[in-house]
């Protein structure tokens, strides 16, 4: 019996959903997901590991709702993240180590309008600063362009004198690097701001210096420029349905040409990328490519207009998609939320596509260092013996390895029957014993049981065993408690023992001498007389009218109060204060309130 024939299916050839069944090559695929295609084989892709997370203000309490930008700051070996929080509509800037771990809150770019949507951000690094543009089509909803200086961690607004008056805020829709220049688009001048077709260029090597006359107009006035990219020594300017090219290398030779493509442009500001001298972009009709001339269709195997696999992950909005190049895989990914279209670039005669379904929705990407480390810290703080006074608790702890140095130490406090609350975010200091002192400002009161707890945080991740918001659930080493020393005993009596009136010209002033009944005497402690203008006792930090050793039971004269027809009342109080500053409760004058404006008869 002869052998049956076989048909070999060479993996790596990708999708072909367009060709009719009579002509389709059977070694292509109708459906292909979550694979890396290389010639002759198909490899299951790997996953995404949460490296870190952003929280509002970096406080580790409110997670940001979206991460809208990831940038490498190669000049300084750092990385930059931008996060947006829906409820507050705040767009905030974070910097991090070059490995992307533990972002540190730097500044708030601004609060977006209620109808501005989730922001898209374009950034470019140039000569020690990073220019950041809010890529919103509507100028009225766009935040002003900013620049971040990694060396100082300061975010500042970009200003330029573009209408020959004074320097004013600039609102570029996007920015990109080209040669030694930064190119910005979508902004005219302060007096004629809404000029979406204008493309501006700065002075070479001076990213913060923009001259009014250094600009081009791309095509029809009012039709917005969506994006721009350096391409083969030129600069590609993309509208939604056209492409232009800026050629030249200096102001003398710069000129805009085109449209080089009259029908296709970028469907979104983040949907174009240049790899190996070819710009791959997603147009309103699907993916295309250009090397500086009319673009070609590279998306035909996807048959985007036809039915797609019925259970394919839902796509995000077209305009908010982004494109990304994975250098290690040599693939271009067009990502729309959870769905991606993946194009390998290895030696293909025709475009070879596959789908990728991500388990989470993605918004942006950036190429930064991998380095070592994990999202969650592995070390932990070990509390040693607490040190107390009547109004302070000092918390010493050892940082138990492994400690990278980018962890944040959270210090939690529970006073008496109250609830635990986080009172400090502290930078970890690897290899040393640290300590932090809590005071009455943190709620420490005399003679009270105080519980403290510590844990490490990196981004929004915690050491295993420390994720609960109730520190009582954490390992024992992280917690300790102490009862603060008893406070000063309050005085037992206060009465006016003497009064006098002094006259200066036509005016008379009344002053009092008080006698204090002390309950208990402590060396170095004070007696303090205070007054208020209502029956509400003074607060612990109120300043005294008189202060003297608590061994002294009679005060000096306190006053004087102007004698006048209109009544004026005072409430007098006395308290003790220990040598460490802890005050006792106040004791009220029996005669309260005292009319200090009309004399006093003993």
């Amino acid at each position, binding site marked *: 019996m002869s052998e049956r024939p076989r048909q070999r299916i060479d993996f790596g050839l990708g999708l072909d959903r367009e060709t009719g*069944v009579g002509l389709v090559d059977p070694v292509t695929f109708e459906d292909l997901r979550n694979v890396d295609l290389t010639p002759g084989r198909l490899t299951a892709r790997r996953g*995404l*590991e949460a490296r870190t*997370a952003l929280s509002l203000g970096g406080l580790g309490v409110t997670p940001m709702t979206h991460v809208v930008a990831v940038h490498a700051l190669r000049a300084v070996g750092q990385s930059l993240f931008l996060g947006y929080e829906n409820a507050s509509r705040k767009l905030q800037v974070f910097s991090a180590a070059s490995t992307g771990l533990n972002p540190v809150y730097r500044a708030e770019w601004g609060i977006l309008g209620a109808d501005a949507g989730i922001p898209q951000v374009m950034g470019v690094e140039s000569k020690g600063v990073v220019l950041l543009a809010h890529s919103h089509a509507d100028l009225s909803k766009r935040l002003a362009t900013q620049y971040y200086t990694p060396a100082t961690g300061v975010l500042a607004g970009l200003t330029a004198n573009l209408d020959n008056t004074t320097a004013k805020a600039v609102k570029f829709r996007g920015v990109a690097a080209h040669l030694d220049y930064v190119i910005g688009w979508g902004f005219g001048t302060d007096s004629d701001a809404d000029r979406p077709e204008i493309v501006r260029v700065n002075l070479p090597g001076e990213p913060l210096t923009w001259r009014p006359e250094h600009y081009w107009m791309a095509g029809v006035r009012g039709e917005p420029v969506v994006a721009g990219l350096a391409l083969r020594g030129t600069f590609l300017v993309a509208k939604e349905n056209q492409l232009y090219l800026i050629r030249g290398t200096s102001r003398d030779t710069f000129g805009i040409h085109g449209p080089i493509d009259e029908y296709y442009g970028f469907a979104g500001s983040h949907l174009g990328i240049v790899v190996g001298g070819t710009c791959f972009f997603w147009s309103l009709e699907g993916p295309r490519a250009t090397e500086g001339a009319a673009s070609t269709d590279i998306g035909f195997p996807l048959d985007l207009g036809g039915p797609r696999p019925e259970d394919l992950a839902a796509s995000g909005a077209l305009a908010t998609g982004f494109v*990304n190049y994975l250098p290690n895989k040599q693939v271009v990914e067009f990502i729309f939320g959870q769905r991606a279209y993946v194009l390998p670039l290895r030696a293909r005669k025709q475009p070879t596509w596959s789908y990728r379904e991500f388990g989470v929705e993605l*918004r942006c990407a950036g*190429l930064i*260092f*991998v380095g070592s480390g994990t999202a969650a810290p592995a070390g932990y703080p070990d509390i040693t013996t607490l040190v107390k006074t009547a109004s302070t608790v000092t918390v010493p702890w050892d940082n138990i390895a492994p400690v990278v140095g980018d962890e944040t130490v959270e210090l939690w406090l529970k006073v008496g029957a109250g609830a635990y609350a986080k009172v400090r975010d502290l930078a970890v200091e690897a290899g040393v014993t640290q300590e932090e002192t809590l005071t009455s400002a943190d709620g420490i009161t005399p003679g009270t049981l105080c519980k403290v707890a510590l844990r490490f945080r990196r981004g929004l991740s915690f050491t295993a065993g420390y994720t609960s918001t109730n520190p009582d659930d954490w390992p024992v080493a992280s917690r300790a408690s102490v009862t603060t020393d008893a406070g000063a005993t309050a005085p037992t009596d206060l009465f006016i023992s003497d009064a006098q009136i002094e006259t200066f010209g036509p005016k008379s002033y009344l002053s009092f001498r008080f006698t204090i009944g002390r309950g208990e005497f402590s060396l170095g402690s004070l007696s303090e007389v205070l007054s208020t203008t209502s029956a509400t006792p003074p607060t612990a930090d109120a300043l005294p009218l008189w202060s003297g050793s608590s061994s002294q039971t009679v005060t000096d004269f306190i006053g004087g109060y102007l004698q006048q027809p209109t009544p004026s009342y005072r409430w007098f109080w006395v308290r003790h204060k220990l040598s460490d500053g802890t005050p006792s409760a106040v004791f009220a004058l029996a005669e309260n309130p005292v009319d200090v404006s009309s004399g006093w008869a003993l």
Partner: protein
Amino acid sequence: MSFFLFMTDPAIATAPIALPSDPATDAPLAIFYGQSGGPNIYLADTGARDGGVRFGLIAKSNPLAPGGFGSECVFTGCYVAIRHTMAVTVRLTPFIDGMELTDCRTSIALPAHASPQRQVIEVGWFQNLRDPLDTSVVVARVFPRGAYAQLLIETFTDDGAGGLRPGLETGEFVVETAELEYEVVRETRSAEPVAA
């Protein structure tokens, strides 16, 4: 916050960059993704899940019609060459004339290996012919017949409750080639002999 504090920020100053221990495999640079609808920043190309969410591999070939679309073939089986270290279940499902043949569906549980192992999975396809009065009774098993065939390859992992769900595990899983075995049994509808 003061300038001084920024300059001494330990998060910036002390976090190390670990150089690759193996330049051939450890990339010092990698893509990081920003999450939409969440605060996370993800490192690409790591592990077998997306932020803890499983995903599986799906590959469905385009139609193979060895004798043309007017013919009839028996499709007797497939050979799939794989290389893996991953412990994963591979499911192979034939589609004949667009119909999914669940009788012929085959799942193969692959064990984990420390180093990549090549193997060829050979699967014969048989369709059950059932008693029309009692469909639980299989009266014969035959090769599936039709004009064209497609092969669906999927991966599954343990769902923790004794079942399977689409997924992958840590490690490598590569499909290097596959072959569909067939025999054309009827090139086309034969002409009726002309009566003398």
